[in-house]
């Protein structure tokens, strides 16, 4: 039997929870500031972080499966609709909504092809798993490749914050100088805008980092399902 170090899954689970917590705070800050751009991405990342933490460490999972399935099916439809709308408006392009639709699909697949825990060891679930049914590894590979590419291209993009706000939406994330109360020099570099914790939470590079972490961890889980 394969011997997975349990700390690896705890680390992944912890990272996912950190991302979920960050996105939840970001969502609250955005709504409180009446600046709801990117709220759907923050909400999605929160759900994904919490859900995947439960996939990596079985005892951290909670809530009925069907509820999670409904959530991710709804998000899939939402992002597909936003992808179509974005294409109608700006022509053919690789919308970040498309990536989030793929991420929602991956989450659904994780529930449709569940991994069953055979032990209650705190050492995590995935090292002690048997599979009820198996996700086609070809599909898992395609999705993982999309997420890893998204992670790299997001990190390298000059449009900091694109993972949350896209490349066409009017947003401070794409031109920090346009946003009131923003330190121009730092904003130009996509770093921390001036203005304390709420502004730090909304820093474009941090938004992108949360997306990158989720993409890499999701790819890891998809391979772990094979």
């Amino acid at each position, binding site marked *: *039997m*394969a*011997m*997975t*170090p349990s700390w*690896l899954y705890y680390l992944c689970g912890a990272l996912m929870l950190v991302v979920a917590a960050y996105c939840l705070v970001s969502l609250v800050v955005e709504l409180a500031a009446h600046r709801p751009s990117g709220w759907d991405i923050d909400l999605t990342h929160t759900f994904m972080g919490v859900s995947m933490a439960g996939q990596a460490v079985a005892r951290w999972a909670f809530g009925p499966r069907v509820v999670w399935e409904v959530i991710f099916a709804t998000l899939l439809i939402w992002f597909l609709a936003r992808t179509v709308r974005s294409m*109608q*408006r*700006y*022509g*053919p392009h690789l919308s970040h909504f498309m990536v989030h639709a793929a991420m929602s699909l991956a989450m659904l697949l994780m529930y449709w092809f569940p991994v069953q825990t055979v032990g209650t060891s705190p050492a995590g679930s*995935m*090292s002690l798993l048997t599979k009820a049914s198996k996700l*086609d*590894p*070809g599909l898992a*590979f395609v999705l*993982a*490749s999309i997420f*890893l*590419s998204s*992670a*790299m*291209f997001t*990190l*390298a993009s*000059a*449009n900091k914050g694109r993972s949350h706000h896209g*490349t*066409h*939406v*009017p*947003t401070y994330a*794409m*031109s920090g*100088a*346009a946003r009131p109360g923003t330190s121009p020099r730092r904003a*130009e570099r996509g770093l921390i805008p001036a203005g304390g914790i709420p502004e730090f939470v909304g820093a474009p590079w941090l938004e992108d980092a949360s997306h990158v972490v989720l993409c*890499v961890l999701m*790819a*890891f889980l998809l*391979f*772990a399902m*094979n």
Partner: protein
Amino acid sequence: MVVMVTESGVGMSIAERPGGNALAATCGSGEFANDEYRRPRDFRESLLLVLATLWLLDAVLQIQRCMFTPGSSGLSGMLNSMARGNPSWIAHTVTWNASMVYHQPVLTNTFFALIQFLIAFGIVSKRTRKPALALSIAWALGVWWFGEGLGELLSGGATPFRGSPGAVLFYALLAVLLWPSEGSDGPFVAARTVGLNAARIIWVAVWAVMALLAVAGSGRSPRVLHDLVAGMNSGQPGWLAAVDRCVESLFLHHASPLAISLAIVCFVVAIGVILPPALTRATLALAVVVFAIIWVATQNFGGILAGGATDPNSGPLVIVLALTYWPLTDTRGTSSAVASGPVVAATEADR
């Protein structure tokens, strides 16, 4: 709508995009404060990001369950098998490495994965790109020796159908060809890094070696080629196993013609870079198509779908290599003007 590859990247002229007017209107309303945001990514930059993505894929594959397992079903078993058929002094170095992994699977595998994460994220950042690429060259050469047993070159079992002369060598080669530089204008990305003549020599040498490996040693043996695919069959999804069965049958009955055909293709591709651009594109497209088929049919995506693979094998890397030689339609300096010109014009018109 015209799709073109310029030094500034693969894409459409903004003015030619459906919805181009909407985008121009968006620009005009002040949403894009900096030209940098609307300039297409440099083609070399895009290829570097693809290379970084492949390194990230390798890193994620390295932390699969089976990699931490000692014994023949784990990484050490995989490494041990690479010693087979090599001269004893090379085999000894490979088994030495395998024994280290055997005794400390978690420690060594975690280290291997961290190195690959470091390379992947290092390549993305412009500040750390050169050290990351240098590390990737050193790492790739080390893995080629200690992990792949020199790509089976000395054991007589090397064939491009299997990924020889070694998938990991292509990582090193791409790091050299995509090394950040401000070289003079060249007809393709690789020429701008190492110079036109050096790039052509590298290209011809690589494809000549692959042509030779296709027909030398056991490269034409029906049994060897059949067993190569049959050995990959285990654990593959049904649709890929079905493809494998067809390929096994093909190799069993037509191994020599297939190997010789591959050698001819490699030879044609080798001389493709010294032909006029239109013919160069045709030969590069041929290389891309042939290696896409090989990647699926004989390399089985590097065995990733069956679990337990550490890399996607040579298929995607050869395709990226071909793209570094893809003739650019424009020269440095004018291409960015071509790509961004219509946007700027539209923006100014909107004001």
